[in-house]
């Protein structure tokens, strides 16, 4: 019995053993890297946090809001998710309408702001970036076909601003609202690949329910159970009548 189990353990692991190595390696990376670091929180100035010594945090000056919400609602009656905040040092409204999509309006003049051009997008990225590296590239992404896999197409259109440096910190900035929709850097990109290899979905890493993972995990389960029997036998059972 033990003999058969040993043989099957060996042969099964010869097929799925590499995946056990991959599971442990990718799992170790994912649990040992701080998830807040992975999410690039260190790259972004938290403008909504308490003011830090280096960065004065801006508070709203409500008395300077000349274009009132009532004005806004009469001009854009179907505006939804209206938020008053800052774009650099300017107070702005951001909202959605069915007809116009995402809209950005100057809160002191009521003037609708044009979509960001390259220079503005770079300024916005630098405003949010904690580092001081130079800008390596700035690309406007408008089409779903040109969207990199690390960005969800629902954020389009966005400016992709990549800073120089080993980890290529990248900011994605919505062209209409000038908000940072997401960031990426080397460790996050590596994390995404680790995840793909962990769940054995090698194209986009979105499908845990793939048959390949099912097959290997099932075989792995059988192999691991046999391994458990072998360990039990070797650690706890010292009698010599094993070869039956």
């Amino acid at each position, binding site marked *: 019995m033990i003999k058969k189990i040993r043989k099957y353990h060996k042969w099964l692991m010869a097929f799925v053993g590499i995946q056990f*190595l991959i599971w442990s390696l990718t799992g170790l990376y994912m649990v040992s890297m701080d998830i807040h670091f992975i999410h690039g929180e260190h790259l972004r100035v938290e403008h909504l946090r308490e003011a830090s010594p280096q960065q004065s945090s801006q508070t709203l000056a409500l008395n300077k809001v000349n274009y009132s919400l009532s004005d806004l609602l009469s001009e854009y009656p179907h505006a939804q998710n209206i938020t008053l905040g800052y774009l650099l040092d300017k107070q702005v409204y951001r909202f959605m309408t069915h007809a116009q999509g995402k809209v950005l309006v100057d809160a002191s003049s009521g003037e609708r702001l044009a979509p960001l051009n390259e220079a503005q997008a770079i300024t916005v990225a630098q405003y949010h970036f904690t580092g001081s590296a130079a800008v390596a590239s700035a690309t406007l992404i408008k089409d779903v076909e040109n969207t990199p896999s690390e960005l969800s197409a629902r954020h389009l259109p966005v400016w992709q601003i990549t800073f120089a440096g080993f980890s290529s910190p990248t900011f994605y900035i919505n062209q209409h609202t000038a908000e940072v929709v997401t960031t990426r850097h080397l460790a996050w990109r590596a994390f995404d690949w680790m995840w793909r290899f962990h769940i054995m979905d090698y194209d986009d890493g979105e499908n845990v329910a793939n048959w390949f993972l099912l097959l290997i995990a099932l075989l792995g389960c059988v192999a691991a159970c046999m391994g458990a029997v072998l360990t039990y036998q*070797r*650690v706890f059972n010292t009698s010599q009548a094993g070869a039956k």
Partner: protein
Amino acid sequence: MFKLNTSLHKWLSLLVGIQLLIWLGTGLYFNLMDHQKASGSVHLRSVDHNAATHSKPLMPLSQLAFDNAKQLKLLWILGHPYYQLTFESGAHGYQHKDVTLVDAHSGDIRPLSETLVRTIALKSYDGAVSITSAHLLTPPIDELPREENPVWQVKLDDANHTNVYIEASSGAVLGHFNDDRRLHDLMLKLHFMDYFNTGGFNHWLIIVFAIASLLLSMTGITWLVERFKSGQLRIMLKPSSQQVTVTDQATAQSSVLTLSTQETLFDALAQHNVLLPSNCGGGGTCGLCRIHSEQALKITPPEQARLSKSKLAEGYRLACQHKASEVTHITVRTNKESAKAQ
């Protein structure tokens, strides 16, 4: 080296074995689960907060008696306008935030009332259901381990024991927690080894276990490579056999057996009911399946680890390390039971 590798493999498997099976089992669950069910959202529907008409004027922002807000949002909760003032918030919704709800008609602070919360909870549920209880919870919250802000919990009396969680600072439904969701969260907790309720996977226990499983995989693969090198991991397409004269050490009786060359001597002999003593079942770790041959046979790492130099020099080897094709005459010592069987 071989001995170190295999004993490491054994002791590491003892350390991480149970957790490894938990990882595989919960991994299979994630592979097979119904995503919508597991997220608790089978009965979840979006709540329409928009007002039918908003004729009453909003209080001008310049008249609001609040300084130091960093962001202001016009929030509709069940048709009534609120100003949601954010004084502080983090990168994630669950992180601590300082938010105040103000009635946008009167300008007064107006936290979410229990009546509103109960209405939102019922509207978020697709189907007829009634409320058992509603409480404003402060962290730590059992079912939302990461949450750092107060949250309303509305218990419903459906068969699936649904709890609706509603963010106190916005009236947003954070989710429906029912028995399906609880099963999913339990599986996640087991997979993340979150036995101390951190709500995440960045903790020392899982890091130690991940390192141990990495070593377990590496020692296993090293072992496989060693077996492949000694010819015990090759697929033979053509079955072949070899005539071997096998002498029993105890009885001095010899017999000529036709042994399969695809398998180790240990396994091939067992097929002829010649059972050699063994603890490990042919793994090269116990050193009991000793045979003697006059022929010059190679010495494998397990043999180096298990047999003394003098025994090796005398011609002793382990049956689990050689193939029948390598020998023509061997002497064996067998189990009592196999002697009886013969």
